[in-house]
C-alpha cells in the first residue's frame, strides 16, 4: 500500500510538474508533509537545514520548494535568498511556513532585498488542506 515508507517509487512522476522539496529542521513536520504530498503522487525531497536545502534545490530542480523559517536564525530566509538570486533556480516558487515571523515583518526584509524572497506564505498553525490547495495550484500552473 502506498504510504510513508514507500519512498522509492519511481513510477510516481508521470506528470511533468510533481516534484516538491521540503526544507524543514523538524522531523515531524517533514513526516506529515511527505505523507500528504506523496498521497497526491508528488515526489518529495527533504533537506533539514537551509544550506542542505540550497544544495538539494540545485541537484533536484524541484517544481516547488516549501521552506520553514524559524526564529532565531536566518537559516530559512538565507536559503530563500540564495535560491531567488540564482538564475537557474529563481523561477521555482517558494512557499514559506512561518511560526514566529508575521508576514508583515517578512515583507520588510523583502523590501530591503528588492527581490521577492517567496511566492506563498502560510502562518502556523495552518490547516494542511490549505497547504495542499496552494501546492496543487502552484504545481498546476504553467
Amino acid at each position, binding site marked *: *500500500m*502506498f*504510504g*510513508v*515508507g514507500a519512498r522509492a517509487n519511481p513510477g510516481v512522476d508521470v506528470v511533468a510538474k510533481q516534484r516538491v522539496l521540503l526544507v524543514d529542521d*523538524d*522531523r*515531524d*513536520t517533514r*513526516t*506529515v*508533509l511527505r*505523507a*500528504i504530498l506523496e*498521497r497526491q503522487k508528488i515526489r518529495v525531497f527533504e533537506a533539514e537545514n537551509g544550506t542542505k536545502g540550497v544544495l538539494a534545490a540545485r541537484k533536484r530542480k524541484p517544481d516547488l520548494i516549501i521552506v520553514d523559517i*524559524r*526564529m*532565531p*536564525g536566518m537559516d530559512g530566509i538565507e536559503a530563500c535568498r540564495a535560491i531567488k538570486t540564482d538564475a537557474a533556480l529563481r523561477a521555482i516558487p517558494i512557499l514559506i511556513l512561518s*511560526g*514566529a515571523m508575521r508576514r508583515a515583518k517578512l515583507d520588510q526584509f523583502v523590501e530591503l532585498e528588492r527581490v521577492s524572497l517567496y511566492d506563498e506564505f502560510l502562518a*502556523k*498553525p*495552518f*490547516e*494542511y488542506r490549505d497547504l495542499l490547495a496552494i501546492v496543487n495550484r502552484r504545481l498546476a500552473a504553467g
Partner: protein
Amino acid sequence: MSVLVAVGGPDRGKVFELDEPVVSIGRDESSHVCLADMRVSRNHAQVVRRADEHQIVDLESRNGTFVNGTRIGAGRLKVGDVIQVGRSSLQYAETADDVPLTQPGDTPVRIVTAADQVDATFDARRASSAGDTDAISVEAAKAAAAIADLKTQHAIRNLRVLYKVVSAVSSIYELDVLLDKVLEIVFSVLPAERGFIVLADPTTGRLTPRAVRTRGQGEEVRISHTIVNYCIRHEEGVLSTNAMSDQRFESGDSVADLGIRSAICVPLRSRQRVLGVLGVDARISTRTFTKDDLRLMTAIGNQVGVVVENARLVQENIRAERLAAVGEAVASLSHYIKNILQGLQGGATLIETGLEDEDAFLVRRGYGIVDKSQRKVAKLVRDMLNYAGPSAPSLSEVDLNSLLEEIIEFAMNTESAEGVALRRQLDPSLPPIMADPDAINNCVLNIILNAFDAVAEQDEPTVTVTSRLAEGGKRVEIAVTDNGVGIPAARLKSVFNALTSTKGGRGTGLGLAVARKIAQEHGGDVSVASQEGQGSTFTVSLPLRAGKADA
C-alpha cells in the same frame, strides 16, 4: 557576632546577623538581608568577611551603596558605620544592643518657635549693652504675650501633629496599616471617642470603612452615611456640635440614630479628588469639638489623602510591573506553543488520512506525533504552574539512585536523546533522602533534557549523570555533565532566568528556572560550572532532609 541593624527605611528595627562569610543585601528573596525597599536592587551589595573584619561591596546596584553618606564601590566597615542602600540604613555593630532605636515618629527636627528665637536675641542684646533694658523687656514681654495667644499655640500644635502624621505614615505602603496609624495619632491629639476612615473604591466609587477606632471598650462605631456623603459631595470638612438640629442633615435618618454627639468629618483629598473621609465623634459631655479642631482635622485629611494616593500608586506600579512580566512571558511562549499546535494539526491530519485510506501505518505515525505534542503541552503547563506558585514539597523517603534510573530511562526515550551516549556514576552508598519524588523527577529531568540539547551538535554527544554525598555526608549532589559548547562567563548568571532561551522555538526558558526553584524549595540549590568549548556541569545539591538547610 557582628550584626547589621536597620536604623532607617521600611525594614527599620530588623537585626541581621553577619554569620556567613558572604552576606547578600538586596530586594531579592534569596538575599540574607532582604529589604522591602523599592529603591534597592535585587542583588544590591554584599558584606564579605575577611579574617576578622568585614567589607561592604557594591554589586553595581542601580542607586549605589553609601557608607556614612559617601558612595562606595567597596570598603572596610568600622563599628558604627551606617550603610545606606536605597532608602534603607543599616548600622554595623558588634551586637544589636549597641544600636538604640528611636521611637517611630521621632524626628531629629525640632520645630523652633518664635519664643525660642526671641529669648536668644534678648540674651544677646542684654549681654552687649547695659542700657535700654526697659525697651528690651517690653519687646520680650510683647513676644511672650504673642506666644500666649491661643491661636498661635494651636497653630504650633497643629504643625507638630501634621509632622507626626507625615513622618509616621509616609513609609508605610500597606494601606490598612497606614490608616490605623493615622487614627492612632488623631486619638492622641483629640479626645475623640470614636473614629473611622472610609475610602472610596477608585473605580466604583463605593465607600468602604477601612479603619475604625474607639476609646473605651464595647463601643460600636456606626458611621453616619449622611455626614459622610455630605463631606464627599461638597468636598469640605464638617463640624457638627449637635447633629440632630443641624439644618444640613435634615433628610438624614442615620444622624438621629447616633444620639447627641459632637462630630467632625473631613475629606481625604488628593489632586482635587476626594478619596475618602476621616471622621471622629464624642459625646457632647466629653468634648464639643471646636473650629480649631476642624482646622487640624482638615489639614490631616489633606495630608492623608496624598499619602493614600501615594500608597495606591505604588501598588499599581507593582501590579503593572507584574502584568508586563506576564505579557512578556506570553509573547515568549507563543512561538513555542504555535509549533506544538502545528504538530497536533499534522498528527491529526495523518490520522484522518490514514483512516480514509485504511492505512494503519499512517494512523500510527500520526498518533505518535499527536502524543508527543500532547506531552509537550502537559510539560509546559506543569512547568508554568511550577514556576508561578510556591509549592511546599510533599516529602517521602526517596532512594535517589533508583529515582535517577527512572528519570534517565524516561529521558533516553525522548526525541532529543537520539545519538546521545549517557554515562552513569551513581554512588551506591547514598542514603535515602527526604524529598518530593515527583518534584525531584521534574527538576533533574529538566536538567538532563537541557544537557541533551546542549550536545545536539557534537560529534560524540555525551552526558554523564553522577550522584554522591557531599559536605561530609550532610548533603547529596546530583551532577549532570555535558560535552557541549559550554556557556560564556557573561551568560552564566542569567542561565537560570525564566523565559530566556537560546534555543529559539524549541525552548521555553522555563526548564532550568523550574529546576532551581524546586531545589530551593527543598532547601537546596542548583549551580552551574562551565568551560567554553568543553562543556558544562549542572549540580543539584539537596539536604538529606528537605526543607531543613543543615547549618
